[in-house]
């Protein structure tokens, strides 16, 4: 192949194939630019930047939904490597794009309703929000270790700023600063792991990793031990664990959530977790794809290790949430706990994929089911967590407080917000009629399945079950204050009624929590369809 052919191939690959497949990202980029232009040419006197943002997010969501539908119609396992293998486009990518963009639309709407960024800061805020979302979409479609790092950084850097966005508030700046420092450390470790891995394997392309590892481990005298490889993998996972606020790297989470506004906290707790989980799944599967050969026990133990960490994370989050007096802090610990539950799902995927024995078909089917559970949980988690944070944001706008004690007797002034909070929290606990229950059940089922391969997974399952019980108490504590305590005299009124827009919005976000608890089939078959593409 001579130079001309390579050049032509490259131009064709970029212009004809790749650019078309990242339309949603490009639209978000375009929206960012138009937000800046709106400010630049003083158009913001006529058009509020938030509406530009909302339209941009909607259009991007439309394109992403269209892409997903086309892929689903086409059937089969279409997997397309774009930009010379840096990104990957398949149903999994498309699913997460829809997920993230739907969430973006909801968050933008929430900020419009709660009036977080004023006219002066509107373009700044939405630029950061959209930039972060692009980073998450890149994370979800990454097929290269370099893009993995790039995605994590693109997500993180705007989040640091968004956490510190309440400029007049000291706690906010402090939170932002803590987040930056922890984030920089985690990124450093992750980059070190990536450099070691890429150096060892001679490639950063994730679709080649399994093959190369196989080559290294099977070549008579192994160049590196399984321990060394697992250390490298764990170093990369440190960066992701930071984004997921998993146990030893969770310190930033409560402080950042407390300092940030409720809208930003809601965004971080759902979107950045979703992106990180997508990336974690891709990263984990890059290693276990195909026959892992001699390294199979290593991967199995990595899976178990992830599971143990997940159990610790969930327990820690739930226990620490007891002490909290601030709702956002409480929800932060709840976020940590939920990251633990979802990480259990990832652990069972890894364990099931690396089951000893020859029956790869069964292993694949089990792993698909585990992943399906994870996706379902994420989808429900989007609505229940956003609902909770939206309620916090609307209440804050009226009573200027986020302390639990100030929520006393809110049922008497704003029943709609209280009922929505109740539904979201019951779902977060995992109560049967709501979506959270179904998600949790699916993950626990896959944990049980994984227990057949190694008994440790059963212990993790027990830990998960116990945690559900623990979590009951602190969620109920908030609900008790809201519903049963008397409203003190002279407490400010909360002006959110049934018919008002905030009330309508909260109901809109909470409704899917109920629906997904009852009508399981639709989302679950989609999730299975999406999950199956990762297991060819």
């Amino acid at each position, binding site marked *: 192949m001579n130079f001309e052919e390579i050049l032509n191939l490259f*131009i064709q690959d970029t212009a004809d194939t790749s650019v078309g497949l990242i339309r949603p990202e490009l639209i978000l980029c375009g929206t960012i630019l138009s937000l800046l232009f709106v400010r630049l040419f003083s158009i913001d006197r006529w058009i509020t930047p938030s509406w530009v943002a909302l339209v941009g997010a909607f259009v991007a969501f439309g394109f992403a939904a269209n892409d997903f539908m086309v892929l689903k119609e086409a059937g089969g396992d279409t997997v397309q490597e774009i930009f010379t293998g840096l990104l990957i486009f398949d149903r999994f990518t498309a699913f997460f794009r829809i997920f993230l963009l739907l969430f973006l639309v909801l968050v933008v709407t929430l900020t419009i309703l709660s009036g977080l960024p004023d006219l002066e800061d509107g373009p700044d805020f939405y630029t950061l929000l959209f930039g972060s979302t692009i980073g998450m979409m890149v994370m979800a479609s990454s097929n290269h270790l370099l893009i993995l790092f790039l995605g994590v950084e693109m997500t993180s850097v705007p989040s640091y700023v968004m956490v510190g966005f*309440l400029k007049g508030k000291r706690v906010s700046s402090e939170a932002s600063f803590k987040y930056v420092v922890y984030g920089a450390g985690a990124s450093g470790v992750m980059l070190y792991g990536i450099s070691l891995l890429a150096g060892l394997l001679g490639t950063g392309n994730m679709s080649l990793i399994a093959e190369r590892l196989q080559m290294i481990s099977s070549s008579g005298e192994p160049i590196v031990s399984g321990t060394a490889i697992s250390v490298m993998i764990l170093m990369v996972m440190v960066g992701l664990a930071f984004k997921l606020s998993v146990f030893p790297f969770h310190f930033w989470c409560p402080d950042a959530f407390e300092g940030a506004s409720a809208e930003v906290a809601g965004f971080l707790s759902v979107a950045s977790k979703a992106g990180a989980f997508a990336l974690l799944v891709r990263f984990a599967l890059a290693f276990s794809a195909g026959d892992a050969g001699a390294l199979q026990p290593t991967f199995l133990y990595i899976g178990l290790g992830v599971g143990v960490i997940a159990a610790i994370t969930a327990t820690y989050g739930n226990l620490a949430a007891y002490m909290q007096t601030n709702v956002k802090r409480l929800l932060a610990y709840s976020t940590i706990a939920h990251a633990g539950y979802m990480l259990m799902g990832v652990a069972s995927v890894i364990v099931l994929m690396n089951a000893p024995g020859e029956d790869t078909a069964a292993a694949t089917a089990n792993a698909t089911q585990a992943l399906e559970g994870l996706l379902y949980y994420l989808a429900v988690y989007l609505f229940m967590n956003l609902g909770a944070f939206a309620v916090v944001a609307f209440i804050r706008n009226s009573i200027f407080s986020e302390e639990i004690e100030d929520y006393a007797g809110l049922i008497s002034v704003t029943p709609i917000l209280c009922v929505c909070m109740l539904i979201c929290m019951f779902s977060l606990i995992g109560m049967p009629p709501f979506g959270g229950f179904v998600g949790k059940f699916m993950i626990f089922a896959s944990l049980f399945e994984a227990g057949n391969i190694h008994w440790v997974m059963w212990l993790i399952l027990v830990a998960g079950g116990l945690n559900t019980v623990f979590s009951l108490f602190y969620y109920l504590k908030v609900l008790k204050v809201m519903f049963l305590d008397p409203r003190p005299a002279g407490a400010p009124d909360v002006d959110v009624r049934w018919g008002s827009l905030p009330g309508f919005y909260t109901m809109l976000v909470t409704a899917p929590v109920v629906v997904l608890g009852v009508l399981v089939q639709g989302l679950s078959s989609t999730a299975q369809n999406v999950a199956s593409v990762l297991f060819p």
Partner: protein
Amino acid sequence: MYDLVGHFLLFGIIIIGALIVPLLIGRLVRPKLPTPQKDSIYECGEPTIGTSYVQFDLRYYVVALVFIVFDVEVIFFFPWAMIYGGAMHLADSRITEATRTELSAKMLNTPVAELASENVIGAESAYWLGLTGLMDVLVFFSVLLVGFAYVWKRGDIDWVRTVMKERTQPTPHQDLIPPTKTPEKQTVS
């Protein structure tokens, strides 16, 4: 690389040597008679008040941030400009075959002797390479320039800013900030 670092060290040592010699010679001939007046910091005759390690205006940091963004961008331009220039030489159909071979070898980073004849880059494909490069850099650069224009419009690069306008405006998000239980201590800066 070895060459560059080695020479950097060599040049550093030579110049430090060349500077130390007059200082050492001076040691033999110069007086050393310190007095408190001579040792004090010069502030036009007034006694000094306070330390000199004072806080600085925020605008210095804004300039530093603008610099970081632009400098990173410019670093990427250097290798790009090299390839682009080479492509533009090659796109000229008047150059001789010998030059074309040499330039192709340079661009593909192979010795002239190992360059297969079908890999010699023709004028047409060099033009396409250049055009692709132009598109890349336009996207890359325009993003930066839009950001720069935005910073300009917001007035962040104005060295002298009208602070009175900002002071009379209410602090943003005043309504969103929950009142803290304990009043924060205000430090005077």
